[in-house]
Every structure is written in structure tokens, then in C-alpha cells.
């Protein structure tokens, strides 16, 4: 394995993890990226977030732009090849890298093996912690009731379902109350929510109704797109429920206000 130019030398037995923060975390929620770093380091990994990363290419791929998606995919393969593992705090982008790159590059005989190799070592954050690093619990505390939304790609493409719940059950003081239809889409769908706003609105309204019915203090998920969608709707409806990425709770990094909350001062909890 070639050492990455920007990667620090790995300590023995500490796998070198390339963190693919994803564009939404990069721009909207750096705290999730740092929470991921925290969790990965606690799980015995050396973490680096290579500078060459931009976006996984899903916007192009889902818009039918195979060529554009392939160009971005090749760049990301190059950027992340040097690492032992690639980890993303997102089931959606994770599925793009792990499942779709091989499809995007299916006709490119030079790149297809590289896409496959990358796929083999790419993981969504929570499944990486539980299934690859054998993490069974975390050292964190949260005093309140949470509910968990199963984001579609993570759930159906990568099988993320029990893993986050398992880790959440180890958080001190946290009570998980499942909502109805936790597995039903929140209506985000990338550009879907701006292309078909009325349908998306109905879907997210159903979701926030189900969230509110649990009387949870906080809704958690593993994908920032869904979280921004749900948080935006909860806020517009004036509902008191807050939204956070599950990594923030697991890493105990709740000093940062919840998604869409005022940035100054500390978070007010009811």
C-alpha cells in the first residue's frame, strides 16, 4: 500500500482510515466530521481527511449524468486509494462509493478494479465501528429521549439498522423511543426535495408527525441530508424536537447547537 502524501505514518496495528466527510458535513455540520474522528480514534484508528476530497458524485449519478459521475468517482478513488479503510458518516454517500462506483465505472476496464478495491474497504461510519472495529459501546452521556430515523440508502443498500441502536443503547441516560414508520423515507432525496417540493413536503410532514408522536427530545439519523430536511420542517412547524447526527451523540459532542439551532450560546434543553 502506498502511503498517502498527506497521511501521517500509521502506528503499528492502527489502521489508517481516510475520512470522507461528505460535502454536506463539510459545509453544514463540521461537528459530525469531528465526531467521526473522535469515534474512529477511540476505536483505535489513525484518521486523516485527505484534502483532495470533494463530493462522492451522487448528484451527477442520480441525475443520469454517468460521465460526470465517473469523472468525480475517478478523482475520489485516487484520493482515497492510499488508506486501509475509507469511512463516511453517511449511508447515502457511503452507498455511492461502496455500491455505485463499480456500476458507474462498469465499462472502464482500467478503473473498474480500482473501484472494486475501494468498495471493499469503504464503510459507513457506524457499521465500520461495530462490524470492523468490534465496538460494542461508547463512553458518552445524553440525558433525554431520542428517536431514530432509518435513512433509506444506509438501511437498504448497506444494512444499517441495528448497529446505531446497539451503540445508542450504551449511551448513559439515553432512552430510545421508536417512531412509527421509522423506515419510511423522509422525502429528502437530494434534488428531489427542490424538484418536487409539494410531494417532498407531504413526506417530511408525515415524518415530523411521527417524530412528534414519540415526544422525543431529539431525532437522530446517520445522514445529514435527511437531518437537514427533518430539522428544517420541525423548525418551520415550531416543534420543540431537535435534530442531530447519531455520531454527535455517540461521541458526546453535543456542545455544538443542534442542527438549525442558533449558533451562539449553549443549547437550551427542556
Amino acid at each position: 500500500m502506498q502511503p498517502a502524501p498527506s497521511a501521517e505514518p500509521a502506528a503499528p496495528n492502527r489502521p489508517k482510515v481516510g475520512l470522507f466527510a461528505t460535502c454536506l458535513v463539510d459545509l453544514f455540520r463540521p461537528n459530525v466530521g469531528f465526531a467521526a474522528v473522535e469515534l474512529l480514534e477511540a476505536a483505535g484508528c489513525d484518521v486523516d481527511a485527505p484534502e483532495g476530497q470533494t463530493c462522492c458524485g451522487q448528484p451527477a449519478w442520480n441525475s443520469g449524468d454517468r460521465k460526470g459521475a465517473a469523472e468525480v468517482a475517478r478523482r475520489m478513488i485516487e484520493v482515497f486509494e492510499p488508506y486501509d479503510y475509507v469511512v463516511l458518516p453517511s449511508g447515502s454517500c457511503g452507498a455511492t462509493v461502496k455500491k455505485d462506483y463499480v456500476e458507474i465505472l462498469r465499462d472502464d476496464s482500467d478503473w473498474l478494479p480500482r473501484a472494486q478495491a475501494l468498495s471493499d474497504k469503504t464503510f459507513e461510519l457506524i457499521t465500520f465501528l461495530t462490524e470492523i472495529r468490534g465496538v460494542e459501546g461508547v463512553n458518552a452521556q445524553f440525558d433525554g429521549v431520542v428517536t431514530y430515523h432509518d435513512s433509506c440508502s444506509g438501511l437498504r443498500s448497506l444494512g444499517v439498522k441495528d448497529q446505531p441502536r446497539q451503540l445508542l443503547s450504551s449511551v448513559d441516560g439515553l432512552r430510545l423511543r421508536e417512531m412509527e414508520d421509522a423506515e419510511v423515507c423522509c422525502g429528502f432525496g437530494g434534488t428531489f426535495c427542490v424538484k418536487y417540493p409539494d410531494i417532498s413536503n407531504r413526506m417530511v410532514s408525515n415524518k415530523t408527525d411521527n417524530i412528534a408522536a414519540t415526544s422525543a427530545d431529539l431525532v437522530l439519523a446517520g445522514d445529514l441530508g435527511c437531518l437537514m430536511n427533518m430539522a428544517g420542517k420541525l423548525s418551520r412547524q415550531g416543534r420543540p424536537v431537535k435534530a442531530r447526527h447519531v455520531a454527535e451523540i455517540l461521541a458526546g459532542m453535543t456542545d455544538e447547537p443542534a442542527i438549525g439551532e442558533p449558533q451562539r450560546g449553549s443549547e437550551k434543553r427542556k
Partner: protein
Amino acid sequence: MTAEPKSSQFKSAASEALQNPRLQAAMKASGGLAVRRAAAIAEIPEFEAIRDAGRDLKNHTLANLDAYLLAFEEKALESGAKVHWAADAEEARAIILKIVGRHAKGPEGKARVNKGKSMISEEIGLNSALEAAGHHVLETDLGEYIIQLRGEPPSHIIAPAAHVSKPDVEADFRAAHTHLDPERTFPDAASLVHEARHVLREQYFGADVGITGANMLIAETGQGVIVTNEGNGDLSQILPDVHIAVASLEKVIPTLDDASTILRLLARSATGQSLSSYTTFYKGARRQGDLDGPKEMHFVLLDNGRSEMLAGEFREMLRCIRCGACMNNCPVYRAVGGHSYGWVYVGPMGSVLTPNFVGIKEGRHLPNASTFCGRCQEVCPVRIPLPGLMRKLREAEFEQKLSPQTARYGLGVWRWFAKRPALYHRMSSIGMRALNWLSGGHGRLKRLPFGGGWTAHRDFPAPAKRTFMAEWKARKAAKSQGDDQ
């Protein structure tokens, strides 16, 4: 010409549907199908393996489709049925009109035609063709009967009147059944079902021709198979002198044992039953000594685009057994109902089929109006990768430059930056700082300078002051400085 498509108006139709309280109430009431499916599947632990078998058997049949159709034809002819082949909707209509005309017993060559529910007949616009020729057409499936009274197309492939509320049905019946007591009341759904039973029963006996679809054609035996819960398909095909079964090419399967696999998947996926009330295997015409059954039996085998799908990227769609599970479980379909899709096939299966039949331009909204949540693929009994097929349609749309200009332009700009990390990070930092400033520290935006589609319905969480990558770089630099000291 097939049924007139209105799929290009999906977006406005969907918005109207969302504002229609009666439709929304009816859609809510129809939520039980998905629940019943889940319960029925939990009952048999082998279901996943049976799905694999269903996929494999359909793939095998499709890979040898010409051979199985010929085998079916041979057996069907042996049993005394007539077999017609129709390349497109027009040919199918012409074949059927000719048979119906020959058996019309009414004045001036007008026939009374009873129909069992058939999506293929919707696809080829059969009813309007029969009516234009002066024939009297009666839909006998209760749901189809209701929408026939309303002059509407079906909104669901197995529950055609899923969009109609009980008060609407009551009004339709009062308007149509004027020979009945106007003072009668309809305290419950049962009273409506009873009236339809009474009204339709008489009409079963007067028909000259019965037309049904077919759920399967068995190559081994030359049998057609019809699955219903009401029994209307059977009454439509055994009482008139002539039975015409119209089926698309991919309905053929090899053997009776293969039918077991399909039957184990079909009703469970559709309605959560282990088997529908009536599953009938029929072949040929009435035999010597028989007291009922049609004196003539015709199969019309319809291509209408299937051979193109078989040759191209959409072959997997031909596995579809028309159970409706994809739409029952689709959050988009559940929100907007079937009519929004603007053509015969609705929900996720329709979003793949419709552009294949009516063209990508007319149908372009359908594969786009999906979050790719993947629920349809998860429930499909024959494991059709519906989101993947919708993505292929988006690809075709993109390649044919049919997607909106603004979207294409935006994507071009994004792609240019996504390949240039340094510029990407610099520009995104600037953009996000601007948005953060716009939020005025409130953490969210009520309106966006672009993306009104988002802020019409929800707030937009403001971006961070500093991107993750910028902050990471800064922390890393600080750390290495610390290490150096």
C-alpha cells in the same frame, strides 16, 4: 394509439392531488395493503428464497421467450383455443373488434361485452375502441365498474378505485342505478357491494363476449390463468359464448410447478392473502357434454413494446407480475395517488414502464419523482431493481438532453468544481460563509436566494462559519506545529 398519456403533467397533477382532501382520505384508507402484505410474508420464513426462485424463473423464461411462446401456442391450439399475435395496440384492437363483431347478437351488429379487470386492455385503449364501434362494454370488477361509471382510468393496478371514497361511490351508484329506490340508504360498504352484486348479476347472463386478461400462460399445458377475489373474471369468461383472453408476451411461464412459485408470491405481495379467492386454470373451448364455458376461446398475445424491452436495458422490468406491492409501499404514490402518473401503469413500476411505452419525453417526470428510497425494490416479489431502472431512464433523459436546462447547467458547474478540490474548497467556503452571514446567527434561513422549493415548506439549516475541511486543515497544522516544538 394506446391510451392517451398525460404523464408530462405529473407535477401539477401531483400538486392538485395533494390538495384534494377526498383523495387524501381515500389514499389513507388504502394503507392497509402494505400492512397486510408484511403480515402475510412474516408467516412463511421461506419467502426470500421463493422471491429468488421467482426472479430466476422469470429470467429463464425471458431468456427463452420465443421458445416458450411457441410451446404455449402449440398446446393452446391443441386444446381448441385460437391464438392471435398482435405486434401493437392497434393490431390487438383490430383482432378483438373483429371477433366481437362476429358474435354480436344485438341489433345492427352491436355486442354486449363483459370484461374482467385487465391492465392490458387499458394499455391498448380497448374500451373506447369497442364503444366507438357501438358495442356495449361492462366492467365487472367492482373497482373497474366504479371507475367506468365515473369515466376515469384506474389509479392502481389491483385496486383500480383506490382513489374513490365511499361517499363518491354512493353518489355514482345513485346516478347510475336509477331503476332502484331513490330513498334507499347505504349505511356501509357492504350495502354498496350488495347493490353492485345485484345489478351486475343480471348482466352476466346477457353478454355475447367475455374479455379478460391473464395472470399467466402455461407453456406446458396451453392454459391461461386468471386470479381474482370477486369471481367476476370467471363469470365473465364462462357465461358468454366467446371468451377472449388478452395477455402480453411476458405472461408465459414454463410449467404448472412454476405457477406454484408465482402464486406463492403474487397474492401475498398484492393483498396479503396466501392465495386469492379464485385462481382458475382454463384451456380451450367448452367440450362435448359441457353445460357451460365459452363455445369459442381466443388468446391474443400482445407485444406492444415488450420485444424492445427484452432487447434493451429494461428486460428486468418484464419480470413484473403486476402485484402492486411497489405502489402500496411507495411514499410518493401514497402521497399523490395513481392518476397523477397520467397513464395506465402507476407507482414505481409505472415510472419504469410508462416512459418505455409513451416515450422518455412524455414520461420524464416519473423516474425523476423518486427519492430512490429503495422500498419498491425491497418489496418486489421478483426483485426488479426499480430504482436502478429509473436511474437508467434518467440517464437516457440526460443523454438525449431532455432534462431542464437549468439543472444541466447547475450540474455542469458542480462537476467542474468537484474535480478541482482546491477551487472547490475555496468557493464552497465563500458560499457557505455568505449563507451563514445571511442567517444572522439564527442557525437557519426562512428563505434562500435560490432553492425556494426548499424554503417554501421548511427552514434551511444555516451552514457552518467554517467548513470541516478548513477547520481540519487548521487543526492539523496546529497539531503538527505542536509536535515540532
